[in-house]
């Protein structure tokens, strides 16, 4: 029975000593230990968080760089496209202009040729007419001296008229 009967004296000493140990340990051991543990965990956590943040920033930076690169590339493509377009346009315009000029010049030439031709033809006609008249005059002057031939001529004219 004795072992299951709590002794008053031992309860007293247990209370006093345990509470003293509890107080001293709480002050000189548990407080600094738990504080350091927490501090260390906090520092580890913040370090991890910082690393994560750095990774994120790095990614953002990389993405930014890539974006810039893409933009630059697009800009370049656009510029090249524009330049080639402009060149094409320029060539086209020049070609058109040249064609136009050419055709205009050909037209002018044609016109000039026509005019010259017309003039020439007129002159030829005039000259031909004058020559004909001259010849006819001379012939007439010589022919009409003879009355027989005059008759012959009239007859041939009349013949023609009949045929018509």
């Amino acid at each position, binding site marked *: 029975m004795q*072992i299951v009967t709590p002794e008053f004296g*031992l309860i007293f000493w247990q209370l006093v*000593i*345990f509470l003293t140990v509890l107080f001293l*340990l709480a002050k000189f051991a548990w407080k600094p230990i738990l504080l350091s543990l927490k501090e260390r965990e906090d520092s580890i956590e913040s370090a991890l968080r910082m690393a994560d943040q750095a990774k994120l920033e790095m990614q953002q930076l990389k993405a930014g760089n890539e974006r810039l690169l893409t933009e630059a590339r697009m800009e370049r493509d656009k510029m090249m496209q524009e330049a080639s377009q402009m060149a094409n346009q320029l060539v086209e315009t020049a070609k058109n202009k040249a064609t136009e000029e050419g055709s205009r010049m050909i037209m002018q030439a044609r016109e000039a040729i026509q005019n010259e031709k017309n003039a020439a033809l007129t002159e030829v006609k005039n000259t031909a007419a004058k020559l004909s008249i001259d010849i006819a005059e001379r012939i007439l002057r010589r022919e009409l001296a003879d009355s027989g031939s005059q008759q012959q001529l009239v007859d041939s004219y009349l013949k023609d008229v009949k045929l018509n």
Partner: protein
Amino acid sequence: MKRLLIALFCILTLPVFANEPATAAEGSKDKAFNPGEMILHHIGDSHEWHWFSTDNGHFVAPLPIIAYRPGKGLSTFSSARLAEDQSYDGLKLEHEHLVSEDGSKVYDFSITKNAAALMGSGIILLLVFTAVARGYKKNHGKAPKGIQSFFEPIIIFIRDEVAKKSIGPKYERYMPYLLTVFFFIWFNNLLGLTPGAANLTGNIAVTFTLAILTLIITLASSNKYYWAHIFATPGVPKALLPIMSPVELIGIVVKPFSLMVRLFANITAGHIVILSFISLIFIFKTAALAPVSLAFGLFINVLELLVAILQAYIFTLLTAMYIGGAVEDHHDADLQMGYDDGSASTHVSH
């Protein structure tokens, strides 16, 4: 590992040597060896520290007797004066119990074997954990080293697995108590297994005090939900409350009572089993039985090493659960898992 085994073996054989002369001495007085008496003497408290006995006599360290008698006042003297049934200053020992010769009331504040062991373990605890704390100051911001790295995982385990899980966000206030209780019980369980040392955690006065402290802390930190749970248990019909409330009220006391008995019984039982195995040699009066006794004793002793930390853990865990039940804000925990004594203690009790 081999050296460890040899050391364990030596430790285990020591009680045998300690017992042997006692039986020889008793044998010479023609008194039969009484294992029950021997075992109870070993697990009980004493007013003197009995190391060992030989044929030349007992090797006993006297301890101070401090007795208070109403009217007569305080009297302090060495326990050596009470040895061999002597009486001194009107006081004598009757079955390790200090009584006055005239039958008047005596308050015994003596530094008994257990009280002395208590002081010793207190000093050990202080030395060990201030050393651990120094480690944190010295290795500030660095990896733990030496004794610090041995205790750190245990401290973190108590914090994360016991306190945080059982108490919740308010766990920090209770950490000093939980840690002190855990290491106090563990260290004293281990010290109790040392030959010649006192069976401190197997003493009901010690476990009683620890349980009372847990009860006081639980009640002091209880909130209205805790009391509402006792006097108006949620989910219980009103008509049943006159029956339920007393049961719940008894539960308040039963919880620490179970703590007290569990630790006391586990540690004491372990000691009794080891001592019984060793007593077999003397009961059968043959050394041929020694290997069997030692093998069983060794097995139980190693088991006790496990029980030492297990009981410390259980006491701490249940204390944390009781506190957790008292400080809990929402009482939906009842529906999810047993924060109550019943399921929790049957689950882990031993």
